[in-house]
């Protein structure tokens, strides 16, 4: 079944359930999907709505992009060097379990209440997931393949290009897909605390005004942002790891 068909079916089921629940709970608690989607279409015509979407998109893309750019090469190098891994791993083991979200006040103090602090917090939280996946993927490369590659005359740089990176890509994209969900959650949290624009603010503002239809427009928009990111990494994985998708 083509993917878009399964998306249509899933959306239809979700909307039907939403409609059924909304008719039980009442429009005050859960507006029906028709009202929410109608308002979403109206909002899509306003520049203010797109300013919120733009601010959120920029923060999440920049945060995830930075995490990817830093964590992937670092993880691959550490995973390929047992000695370096021995030095770095204790730091990772100690810092990974620390809930980075509690560092928000410090990050706000250091980087201000603008975009930078939000991007850094997203990056910091995503970094560990992507780093650990990249490191473990590089560490688990089949020993015989490494020997065979070295015997073919491959140098260190070629080893990363032809073996480490392609071997690790499926795991990296899986971690990025999972990270998309985490990043949206962090984005909502930071935008609800301090922002002049952003979907997190849009939701909290509508909630404060008891404008539940608008609040659900914000929730749907933020969910769509997460879905788009998830799909982006899925497409990227399909394009760059064709071998994984052949029978």
């Amino acid at each position: 079944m083509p993917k878009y068909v399964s998306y249509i079916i899933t959306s239809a089921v979700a909307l039907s359930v939403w409609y059924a629940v909304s008719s039980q709970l009442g429009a005050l608690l859960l507006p029906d999907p028709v009202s929410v989607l109608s308002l979403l279409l109206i909002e899509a015509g306003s520049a203010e709505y797109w300013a919120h979407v733009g601010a959120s998109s920029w923060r999440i893309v920049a945060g995830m992009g930075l995490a990817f750019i830093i964590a992937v090469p670092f993880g691959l190098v550490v995973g390929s060097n047992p000695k370096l891994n021995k030095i770095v791993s204790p730091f990772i083991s100690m810092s990974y379990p620390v809930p980075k979200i509690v560092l928000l006040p410090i990050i706000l103090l250091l980087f201000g209440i603008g975009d930078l602090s939000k991007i850094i917090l997203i990056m910091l939280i995503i970094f560990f997931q992507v780093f650990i996946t990249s490191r473990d993927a590089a560490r688990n490369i089949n020993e015989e393949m490494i020997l065979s590659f070295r015997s073919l005359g491959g140098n260190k740089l070629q080893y990363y290009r032809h073996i480490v990176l392609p071997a690790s890509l499926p795991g990296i994209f899986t971690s990025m897909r999972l990270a998309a969900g985490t990043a949206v959650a962090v984005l909502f949290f930071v935008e609800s605390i301090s922002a002049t624009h952003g979907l997190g603010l849009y939701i909290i503002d509508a909630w404060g005004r008891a404008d539940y239809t608008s609040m659900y427009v914000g929730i749907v928009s933020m969910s769509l942002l997460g879905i788009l990111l998830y799909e982006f990494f899925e497409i990227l994985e399909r394009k760059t790891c064709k071998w994984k998708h052949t029978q």
Partner: protein
Amino acid sequence: MNSSKNLLKVENLSKVFPNGDREKVVFSGINIDLAEGESISIAGQSGCGKTTLLLIMAGLTAPTGGTLSLNGKIYSNPSSDIALVLQDYGLPPWKTVEDNIRLGALLQNIPVSDDEINDLKSHLKIEGLDHLYPHQLSGGQRQRVAIARILLLKPKLLLLDEPFAALDALTRERLQKLLLNIFRQRGLSFIIVTHDVEEASLLGERIMVMDSNGGGISAVIDNPGFLSEGYRDTPEFFERIKQLREVLKASD
């Protein structure tokens, strides 16, 4: 032994692994002289250090003692004149057959023509598989691709580590025949390590038996008829298997 020029010389080679407070001697005092166009089978029980010896000869692992020289030059790193074929083929699963075949040439920046590659594919019977990935091939096809990849580099010495062990009997027989054909036609030298007494007797002009208790080569059996037509069915072949089996039992 073949009277041609010496290609590989292994002198007093030893390998010791640390084992807690003590040391484990894998092997010691190994001496091998391999002439150009000669083949040697190295047989021994599992764990006697055959693979370690092969990896040292490939320049991939450092020995604890001793020297290696190729064409009179001492070496300790991988050389473009030495190619290694392993049991699980070492084909990156993300590269197509075509890319896998070209990989060694690409890494060493060796220009290869399409004709050269097509000839090799036709010789090894792996035509029409260019866009497939290794997991889409049979075990025999994968090993042929691995062989094509190293033949493209025109090595002088082929080192094979139980290359056919994971294959079914018929495929193994076909590939053993193919290896002997390549050996005859290209004048390649090769060293194969195997625990299979039939394979050792079929492919080596000399069969060396490795000691299982940290010693060196405990016996060398000459196998002059190994290239003769239908050798596999001759009494000489069965006699060689029997002889090798007895030596292996004695070396355990």
